C-alpha cells in the first residue's frame, strides 16, 4: 500500500495524514464547528414551522407529515456533503499549503478520499444534532426511515462528492477566482431536482433535465415513502446508476483540470 514506484499506488497512511490535518484544524476552531450546525438548524426550523402551519390549514399537507422537514434534511445531506468536501479543499488554498501537498508523495486519489472522509465527518457533526432537534420540535424522526434513509444518503452523498470533485478541479485550474462556484454550484440543483415539489410540477422539457440528475430520484422516493408509504427501490437503483456516471465524469474532469493546472503553472499561484 505504501509503494512509491508509480502514480497508481494508494496509501491509507497518507489518507490518514490528511484526515489528521483537517481534524486538527476543525478542533482548533469552535466557530468552524458551530458553523456546521447553525445553518442546517435554521433551515430545519423554518421549514418545520411552515409545514406545521400548512398542515393545520390544508388536508393534503396534514397527510404528508414531515415532507418539508424530510426534504430539507435530505437537501442538507446533498448540499453539506458537497460543501464539506469543497471547504476542506478551500482550506488548503486559504492557507497557501497546496504547493506543499502537490510536491509531497500524496496522490490525487488519496487527497480526494481524505476530502470525502472529512465531508462525512463534517456532515455528521452538523446533521446529527439537527435531526435530533427535528424530533424534539416537530416529532419527525429521520432515523425511523431505516434502510430507505441509507439508500437516500448513499445517493445524495455520491452526488455531493461528484460535484465537490469537479469544483476542486476548477479551483486547481483557476485558483480562488473560482471560489464562488464552491459555495453556489449546488443551488442549481435546488429547483431542478425538485426538493420540495414533485417532478410533475415542472414543464415537460425541464422534466427531462430533472430526471438526468440523481437527487431527483431520491426526493421523489422520499415523497413516495412519506405520502404513499412505499419504498421505491427502482428509483434508488436509477439514481445510483446516474451517480456512477456523474462520479466518473467528475473524476475525469478533475484529472484533466489538474493536468491543465500543471500545464498553465497555476498550482503555485492558487490565490486568485
Amino acid at each position, binding site marked *: 500500500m505504501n509503494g512509491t*514506484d508509480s502514480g497508481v499506488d494508494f496509501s491509507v497512511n*497518507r489518507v490518514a*495524514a490528511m484526515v489528521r490535518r483537517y481534524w486538527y484544524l476543525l478542533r482548533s476552531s469552535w466557530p468552524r464547528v458551530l458553523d456546521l450546525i447553525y445553518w442546517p438548524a435554521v433551515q430545519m426550523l423554518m421549514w418545520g414551522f411552515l409545514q406545521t402551519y400548512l398542515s393545520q390549514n390544508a388536508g393534503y399537507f396534514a397527510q404528508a407529515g414531515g415532507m418539508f422537514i424530510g426534504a430539507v434534511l435530505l437537501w442538507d445531506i446533498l448540499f453539506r456533503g458537497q460543501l464539506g468536501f469543497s471547504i476542506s479543499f478551500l482550506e488548503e488554498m486559504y492557507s497557501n499549503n497546496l504547493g*506543499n501537498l502537490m*510536491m*509531497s*508523495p500524496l496522490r490525487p486519489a488519496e487527497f480526494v478520499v481524505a476530502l470525502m472522509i472529512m465531508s462525512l465527518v463534517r456532515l455528521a457533526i452538523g446533521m446529527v444534532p439537527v435531526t435530533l432537534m427535528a424530533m424534539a420540535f416537530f416529532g419527525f424522526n429521520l432515523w425511523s426511515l431505516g434502510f430507505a434513509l441509507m439508500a437516500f444518503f448513499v445517493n445524495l452523498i455520491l452526488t455531493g462528492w461528484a460535484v465537490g470533485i469537479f469544483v476542486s478541479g476548477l479551483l486547481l485550474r483557476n485558483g480562488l477566482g473560482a471560489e464562488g462556484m464552491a459555495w453556489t454550484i449546488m443551488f442549481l440543483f435546488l429547483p431542478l431536482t425538485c426538493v420540495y415539489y414533485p417532478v410533475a410540477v415542472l414543464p415537460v422539457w425541464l422534466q427531462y433535465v430533472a430526471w438526468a440528475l440523481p437527487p431527483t430520484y431520491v426526493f421523489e422516493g422520499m415523497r413516495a415513502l412519506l405520502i404513499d408509504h412505499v419504498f421505491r427501490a427502482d428509483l434508488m437503483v436509477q439514481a445510483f446508476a446516474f451517480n456512477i456516471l456523474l462520479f466518473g465524469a467528475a473524476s475525469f474532469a478533475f484529472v484533466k483540470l489538474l493536468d491543465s493546472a*500543471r500545464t498553465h*503553472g497555476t498550482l*503555485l499561484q492558487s490565490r486568485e
Partner: protein
Amino acid sequence: MTQPVVPAIAADNLVKRFKGATAVDGISFSLPAGSVTGLLGGNGAGKTTTISMIMGLVVPTSGTITVLGAQMPKQRYRVLHRMNFESPYVDMPMRLTVRQNLTVFAQLYAVPDIAARIAVLAEELDLGDFLDKRTGKLSAGQKTRVSLAKALLNRPEVLLLDEPTASLDPDTADWVRGHLERYRAARGATVLLASHNMNEVERLCERVIFMKKGRIEDDDTPARLLTRYGRETLEDVFLDVARGTGNASEAAQ
C-alpha cells in the same frame, strides 16, 4: 563493468511557454549527486519556473527534466518521497501547531518513528520553545526554521531551496546556512538553491548557474566566475550578467 553515473538533476533543452511568453528558453544542465548549485537571476529570469518543473508542478512545453533518474512530471511519484523543498512562497497551515504540521507532513512522507524525528529536528533547528505554538503566531525567522524542518523531515536526497533566508535577520540567516552546510555534508544531498543573496551563494555553492530571460547566461564555479569577469564579488558578477555590462558579453561566450 561500471554503472553509468546518473545525475541527481538533469535538464535537456528545457522550454516553457505561457500563453506565448517564453519563461524558460531551451536550458540544459546536469547536477551531479551531492553537489550544491546556485540558480541565480533577476526577477522574471525563469528560476521559479525551472524549479517548478524540477518539482513536477509545471509541465515543460518541450525538452526533458529528470530527477534521480525519473522523468518529471510523468514519473514524479517514483522520486517525490526522496525530494523536498522550502520556499517562502508557500506556507504551512497557520492554525495548526508546529508539532501538528510536522506530524502531518512526516506521515505524508512515510517517515518512520515520527515523534523521534521531530525531536531530532527540534533539537537541531532549535524549535523546542515553540513546538506546541500555532504556526501563524511565529516570527518570520521561526517560520523559516519550521519550513526548513519540514523540508528535512524525510532526509531528502534532493533538496530544492527557493530564497531560504529571505526576510531573515543576518544572525538567523547565517545560522540557517550553517545548518544547510552540515546537512549536506552529513547526508551527501544534492542542493539546488535559488537566491538573491550573493554572500549566501558564495558560501554554500560550488557551482553557479546564471539565468536571464529564460536562458542560461553563464554556468561555472564562483571562483572561476570572479576571475573571468574580473570582479571581487559575486554580486558584481550578478550585476554584469543582469545588465550585460563589464565582461559579461565576452565571458558568456
